[in-house]
């Protein structure tokens, strides 16, 4: 391997990380109305998005910087997305600037005389439709609603702000274009379809990556039964150097469609390798026995996994859109997903990850993996971990995620007795978000009560003359 300037050969192939602008065919995360609704989409020419009862093409989003804001405008060809600047976006600060002086008057106001009987607003829905037909913008409709509300003037400044934001969300919705990354993909799935990712919360996923010391040059052994989210997260941190060996205890790899949402380059995709556990084991007898026993345990899981993979396959055919969101329609279908993409980067094959070449398997048997991460949130762990640990180098860290506490406790106990690992710890992460506003700072009303549990530790060498895989 010729080296220039002391660089690792793979380094020269790396692109600048974190692209800042969209391109045709890239995967994006659309944030509608400040987090109210999150949608994954692929920016193919015919892709559309439905907001309320309007359907808009996503093509105006191609070539725009991530972080751009769009609003729905009604034009001669129907509703379409127009890019707007963030300064004209509705936000708390814009509203509050006008009312800062009125703070002392505000303290005298309260809601004792407000009666909720639906008579405050004098504009009817017909009036609003008429305004729309005459070409009024969403913001103009909101202003009109505020002006025609008999109770608006009696509200506190905070209350008026809240009212205005609520109306804006309905009549002048905004779409924020976001680049998918580990954290945003995890958070979106956790909010919408937590079962697909085994209830793995974003802080738990971050902990797994740190506890297992994931970084460039690592060779990471992974059991990913959370739809590919874990594989994608690790691939992001490897940045094209090092490998992920995604292993499985049945005949087919576990579904990993989520990897395709990361917009990985070809170099990064090429680092995801798949190998059945039987291939990774040193002795032939051992692997036959083990894979059979693990497959028995998982026969019930296979059923649910296959169904799950069918679901995600259907979703991916309609271009990553989660089934209940009619995000993309006819224009973006199966052919887009299947054919090799020459123009844009990305692994669009049905199952991202290639079969392990024999030389890599040999290398891993000789050197061992640098770390192990397991996210099999519904498996009965049993002797799974003890079968996987011998594949790890000595002093290599591991992290095991599970939805339930008991299997990890049992596993920890087994590892303690067998003395295969030290620094064993069961952790439960706790995450709380805050609303920070002048005079209104407090934790958010809603909170996630459980993001799962992690068993972490370090593999050690137990005998005096340890060398190689024993």
């Amino acid at each position, binding site marked *: 391997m010729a080296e220039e300037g002391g660089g690792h050969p793979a380094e020269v192939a790396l692109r600048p990380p974190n692209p800042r602008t969209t391109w045709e065919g890239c995967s994006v995360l659309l944030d509608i109305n400040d987090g109210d609704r999150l949608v994954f989409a692929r920016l193919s020419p015919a892709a559309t998005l439905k907001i309320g009862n309007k359907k808009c093409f996503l093509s105006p989003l191609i070539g725009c910087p991530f972080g751009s804001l769009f609003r729905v405008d009604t034009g001669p060809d129907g509703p379409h997305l127009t890019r707007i600047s963030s300064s004209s*976006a509705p936000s708390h600060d814009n509203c509050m600037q006008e009312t800062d002086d009125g703070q002392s008057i505000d303290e005298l106001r309260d809601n004792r005389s407000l009666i909720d009987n639906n008579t405050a607003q004098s504009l009817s829905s017909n009036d609003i439709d008429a305004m729309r037909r005459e070409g009024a913008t969403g913001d103009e409709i909101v202003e009109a609603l505020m002006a025609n509300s008999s109770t608006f003037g009696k509200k506190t400044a905070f209350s008026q702000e809240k009212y205005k934001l609520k109306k804006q969300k309905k009549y002048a919705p905004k779409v924020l274009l976001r*680049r998918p990354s580990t954290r945003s993909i995890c958070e979106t799935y956790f909010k919408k379809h937590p079962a697909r990712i085994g209830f793995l919360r974003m802080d738990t996923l971050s*902990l797994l990556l740190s506890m297992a010391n994931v970084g*460039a040059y690592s060779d990471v052994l992974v059991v990913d039964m959370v739809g590919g989210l874990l594989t994608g997260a690790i691939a992001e941190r490897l940045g094209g150097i090092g490998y992920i060996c995604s292993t499985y205890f049945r005949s087919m790899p576990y579904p990993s469609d989520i990897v395709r949402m990361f917009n990985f380059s070809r170099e990064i995709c090429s680092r995801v390798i798949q190998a059945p556990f039987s291939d990774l084991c040193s002795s032939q007898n051992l692997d036959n026995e083990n894979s059979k026993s693990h497959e028995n345990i998982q026969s019930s899981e296979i059923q649910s996994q296959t169904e799950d993979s069918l679901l995600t396959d259907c979703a991916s055919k309609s271009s990553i859109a989660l089934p209940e969101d009619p995000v993309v329609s006819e224009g973006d279908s199966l052919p887009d997903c299947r054919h090799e993409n020459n123009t844009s980067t990305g692994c669009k094959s049905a199952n991202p990850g290639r079969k392990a070449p024999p030389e890599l398997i040999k290398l891993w048997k*000789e*050197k061992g993996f640098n770390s192990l991460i397991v996210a099999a949130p519904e498996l009965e762990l049993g002797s799974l971990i003890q079968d996987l640990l011998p594949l790890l180098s000595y002093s290599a860290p591991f992290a095991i995620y599970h939805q339930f506490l008991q299997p990890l406790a049992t596993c920890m106990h087994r590892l303690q007795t067998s003395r295969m690992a030290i620094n064993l710890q*069961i952790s439960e992460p706790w995450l*709380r978000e805050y609303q*920070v506003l002048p005079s209104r700072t407090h934790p958010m009303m809603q909170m996630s009560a459980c993001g799962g549990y992690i068993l972490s530790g370090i593999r*050690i060498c137990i005998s005096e003359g340890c060398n190689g895989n024993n």
Partner: protein
Amino acid sequence: MLLIDPSKRNSFEWHICEGDLVIVYERHDNMKAVKVQKGSVFQNRFGIFKHSDWIGKPFGSKVLSNKGGFVYLLAPTPELWTLVLSHRTQILYLPDISLVLSYLEIVPGCLVLESGTGSGSLTTSLARAVAPSGHVYTFDFHEQRATLAREDFTRIGLSSLVTVTVRDIQGEGFPEEFCGSADSVFLDLPQPWLAMPSVGRMLKQDGVLCSFSPCIEQVQRSCEALKSNFTDVRTFEVLLRTYEIKEVRMDGNGGGEGSPVGPFPRKRRQCLSGEGSNGSMEQTTAVMVRPCSEARGHTGYLTFARLACI
């Protein structure tokens, strides 16, 4: 040291050499970083350990003292380093560090700005995340601490990835040379709002900022300052709860006549001390788990924000 050099990649073939930094592990809450030198010894309550016994052994080995006591020799990782480094300031721990790395979207090749450096706990994790092609520029206004941090990074082999500079970021902002080139910025300052205009100039389009503050008043002032040119401002608290396990052997109901008082308690005690199983009784073991009684209640608030698109 920290997996940056592919030739030193942690593997079955990686053996401890003279000059290596090892983490000597006594217990999960008792570890030390030691530089291996022929002729030196390491001493603790378990006895005296000769470094020469360590050389040639693989990382992850158990080594014995002159009295037959033992410790484990582990390869350094940013996580272990955080637990053994010398505290010159209050440091950031694993839960905060891991969320910061994720939220700031730090991947290999990124350019990250940090202030203050403190004891270098987060810096070490940032370095691993940007390796091999990225860089961490870290700033601290305290000259002596900056020097100690620089020495630490050299000791753990990160000097090619981290540059430490003495600079008062609150007073002067970040150096102009970094304008528009930072992927992510991290602030751990007493008055971070003073640095925010500068951060706005340093970040690339859609770049991410994180500000860590122990007090809610600081968070409020920071969020106020972020309104002008940042968006997606979110504040979190993250903590970790740990669990402990205990094995309990329970007598089966096979042989007993019924009454739980009398012989039962004694037999249970015998079983727990592990002095052999009671042949006539069935025994099962159960593992019980409960939260540890001690936990960290608060470290600081993490406020994240993205540079708004113009």
